[in-house]
């Protein structure tokens, strides 16, 4: 069983990407959540140093983790060679620039001319990175990575960030933040529902990349829904912020595992399987 587990582990070559997307979604989500709260409940636009630090640390660690996915890690800087032309180059550039903005703001002393602009730039680019994280995978080769799936890093990452910031807010602002969190959790669950619909349509039509994970798609999706909506809502109602943070952390990681694990791709074989079943292939 140990050998089979190790073999399955190695077969899931997307694991470094799970780490990258989870950590970057968390880091950028924290910045995005701060922006969200500034705009809605009226907290200060400039994040305090601990928030900047955590956001930058998570994003930076995520970028380092992504290098583990490369077959040739030392050639990593070449990823920016087609900036403006490749979505992947653009995504990495946005992520790195967001990190630079947040880090610069952290390093600069209070009152420095560039402290606030760096932070705002870092935060803005963090939101852009969350969108790019989803959009980079909207590929014609993949049936389940487009559509609503593009928005999942934004909704879940921001919800996670909000769960972290909620307990740090003054009591008077917490009810408004609570409502904002509920809204984000519901939107995230709706996005998950739309992804489920696409997945259901793709199964049996396309080719599963990880069939063993796909075989239990219902169970995994229910767990993801529980971690991403049911337990956090219960945690907010019971005033247990630790439940909310822990549950959404689990949701963030599981979501990324399922993003790759439940992937169904287009392939020549899949097209002809449809023919064998006497079905017209979709145009």
């Amino acid at each position: 069983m140990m050998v089979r587990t190790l073999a399955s582990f190695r077969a899931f070559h997307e694991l470094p990407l799970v780490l990258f997307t989870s950590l970057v979604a968390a880091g950028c989500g924290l910045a995005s959540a701060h922006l969200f709260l500034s705009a809605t409940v009226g907290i200060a636009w400039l994040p305090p140093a601990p928030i900047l630090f955590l956001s930058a640390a998570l994003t930076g660690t995520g970028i380092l983790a992504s290098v583990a996915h490369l077959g040739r890690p030392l050639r990593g800087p070449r990823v920016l060679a087609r900036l403006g032309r490749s979505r992947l180059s653009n995504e990495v550039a946005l992520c790195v620039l967001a990190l630079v903005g947040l880090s610069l703001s952290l390093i600069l002393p209070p009152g420095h001319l560039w402290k606030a602009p760096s932070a705002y730039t870092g935060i803005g680019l963090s939101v852009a990175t969350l969108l790019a994280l989803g959009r980079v995978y909207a590929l014609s080769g993949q049936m389940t990575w487009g559509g609503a799936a593009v928005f999942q890093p934004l909704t879940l990452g921001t919800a996670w960030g909000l769960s972290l910031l909620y307990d740090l807010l003054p009591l008077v602002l917490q009810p408004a933040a609570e409502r904002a969190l509920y809204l984000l959790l519901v939107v995230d669950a709706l996005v998950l529902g739309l992804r489920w619909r696409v997945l259901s349509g793709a199964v049996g039509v396309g080719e599963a990349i990880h069939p063993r994970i796909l075989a239990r798609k219902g169970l995994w999706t229910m767990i993801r829904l529980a971690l991403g909506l049911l337990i956090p809502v219960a945690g907010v109602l019971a005033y247990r912020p630790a439940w909310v943070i822990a549950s959404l952390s689990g949701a963030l990681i599981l979501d990324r595992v399922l993003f790759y694990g439940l992937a169904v791709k287009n392939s020549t074989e899949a097209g002809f399987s449809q023919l064998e079943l006497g079905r017209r292939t979709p145009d």
Partner: protein
Amino acid sequence: MTAERVPGLPPRPRKVSFTLDLARCVGCGACVLACRMENRLQAGVSWRRVVSVNLPRFAKWPTFHLSVACHHCDDPPCLKGCPSGALRRGPDGIVLLESKACLGCRYCEMACPFGAPSFDARAGVMTKCHFCHHRLAEGRAPSCVAACPTQALGFLFAEMGTGQDAQLEGVGGPFRPATETLGFQDPGSASPALKTAPPAGGLRSSLYEALRDSLEGQAE
């Protein structure tokens, strides 16, 4: 077997594409083996494969076979997504992957709807069919085409400026874009350059035509 040297192949052929006559392909896999030997592919790496299609009426009887590799698309999704510039498309339409520039990020593998790029785990880079451009430069056919015992696999080229198509290897036809073959999908409109001729003659042709009629009925 086809001759090694292809008479009449211009020194720099323009706009090449594979052709496949579905009536002739018997699914022997000689093309797959020839490709592996010519390009010294590592274990786990494959540039060409044979897809066998059984129609439902005779479940244990393969109806037709397709030998597929990289289709050297007109609008390749692999090239569009590659962040390092390792992929480029030459004036002859061949999509080449420069392994020395490849990061091994496998993005092209995710992007390609035809399963063409293949990851070489030992080298840590992506690899794919390059149309045996080294053989073309010597006036020889790609190794898969040369190895095909039934001449089902061939290739077309169009001379630059003349707009004239001439089939150099393989027989059969008439060839149409592969997207007109039942079951062949082109999600994302990559415009694969592969050309195919449908199964012709005998029971296979009748089954193919019956299926086409049935699917057209579903569409209405």
